[in-house]
């Protein structure tokens, strides 16, 4: 099965674009059909490879957004203005066209319903993507693991999966947003960066031994992980995935 250490080479496979979903002004989900897809676990990623007419190639990694679903694999991609690959995936690739992909990759930052909880997910911006795969996997399995998502976005318009998260809430899933830069009129939720006080309010107590998954830009994840350790949570129970530079 996917993700186990005993497995043959991950070959480059053809993936056909079947659908594009606009998530926010800067983020789109591309739904791919991969006939050879072996299945995946929530939290895993894929490598995507583009090839120019002269043979030049570039590879990038993208988190899988979808729960296991046959040959369908959804990637949620943030368009980086100076990016080499992401603008092509979000704006140029057309349904019916194919790219190369290999995966699933990664056996650590993964969660399956059998892993249990309570589950505490902490997302910064597009770091929500692999965590959404966990929420979707939980929902698809009709699993009732107590799960909380603390999700930091700049503004309401930047919240990825907003409607779906609202729909999936309940049945043991709680979603808490914080909007750091601007808030809509009447907003009563958090309106600041994730800090230790917020984590103490939202996360289960250390005695409940929650499993943490934190994903986002490097300074965000550094701050979250450090705060969780200070709050008394067990470092090995805090799994992190960071992207981007350190800002130094």
């Amino acid at each position, binding site marked *: 099965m996917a*993700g186990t*250490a005993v*497995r*043959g*080479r*991950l*070959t*480059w*496979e*053809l993936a056909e674009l079947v659908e594009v979903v606009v998530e926010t002004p800067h983020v789109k989900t591309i739904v791919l059909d991969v*006939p*050879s897809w072996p299945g995946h676990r929530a939290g895993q990623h894929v*490598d995507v*490879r*583009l*090839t*120019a*007419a002269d*043979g*030049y*190639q*570039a*590879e*990038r*990694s993208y988190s899988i957004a979808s729960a296991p679903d046959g040959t369908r694999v959804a990637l949620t991609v943030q368009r980086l203005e100076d990016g*080499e690959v992401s603008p*092509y995936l979000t704006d*140029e*690739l057309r349904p019916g*066209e*194919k*790219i*190369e992909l290999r995966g699933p*990759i*990664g*056996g*650590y*930052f993964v969660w399956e319903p059998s892993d249990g909880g309570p589950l505490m997910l902490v997302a910064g911006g597009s770091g929500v993507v692999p965590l959404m795969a966990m929420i979707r996997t939980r929902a698809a399995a009709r699993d009732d693991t107590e799960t909380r998502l603390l999700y930091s976005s700049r503004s309401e318009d930047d919240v990825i999966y907003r409607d779906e998260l609202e729909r999936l809430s309940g049945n043991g899933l709680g979603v808490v947003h914080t909007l750091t830069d601007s808030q809509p009129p009447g907003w009563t939720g958090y309106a600041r960066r994730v800090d230790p006080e917020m984590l103490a309010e939202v996360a289960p107590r250390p005695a409940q031994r929650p499993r943490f998954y934190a994903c986002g830009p*490097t300074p965000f994840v*550094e701050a979250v*992980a*450090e705060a*969780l*350790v200070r709050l008394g949570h067990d*470092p*090995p129970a*805090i*799994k*992190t995935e*960071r*992207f*981007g*530079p*350190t800002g*130094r």
Partner: protein
Amino acid sequence: MPPEAAKLVVSRGWRGRRSTDVDPARIPPGQYVTRDFPVLSAGPTPHTSLELWDFSIIGELAEPRGWTWEEFLALPSEEITRDIHCVNKWSKLDTVWQGVSVDTLLAGIETSAEYVTQYSDGGYTTNLPLEDITGGKAWVVFAYGGEPLAPEHGGPARMLVPGHYFWKSAKWVRGLRLHLSDEPGFWETNGYHNYGDPWQEQRYVGD
């Protein structure tokens, strides 16, 4: 493998953005050059005080060796300028480090070990054949770009093994364990390649 996958799959209209100021021979397959210094860590950043820090050589040797932070800094160190390559696709060229050669740490040790595990605060491990970190191929570094190594980049000290993908350069390293047999480490048991040669693009199991 379906026959069509063996052909070049050209992405219509995509040109890519090639570095014009970099010798392509310095970039392993599938890598791109970054000026940033991204971070890849699986868990919280450990913070070990320098009073408690030590570095040890343990395992297959007659007498374990160890250095306190002060003793470690008193060892002969050198400036090392190398290109580094992360399995997450970025490469960073001409990075400048200060550190102690593993050859210095192992000098005079007699061992029948053929493998080594780097082990770190926080529980991280990574494995290599011993010959891949000896003979001027690896260092324990404590400064980057002329500054003390930042915690998120592995400070106070990390390994530098530039011949391999950068997960083979353990952050927050506390010692080397010498083994008779190969013992796959953290990422090596989580889907990544056991050897990790960037020039062979050995990213994942089976590559």
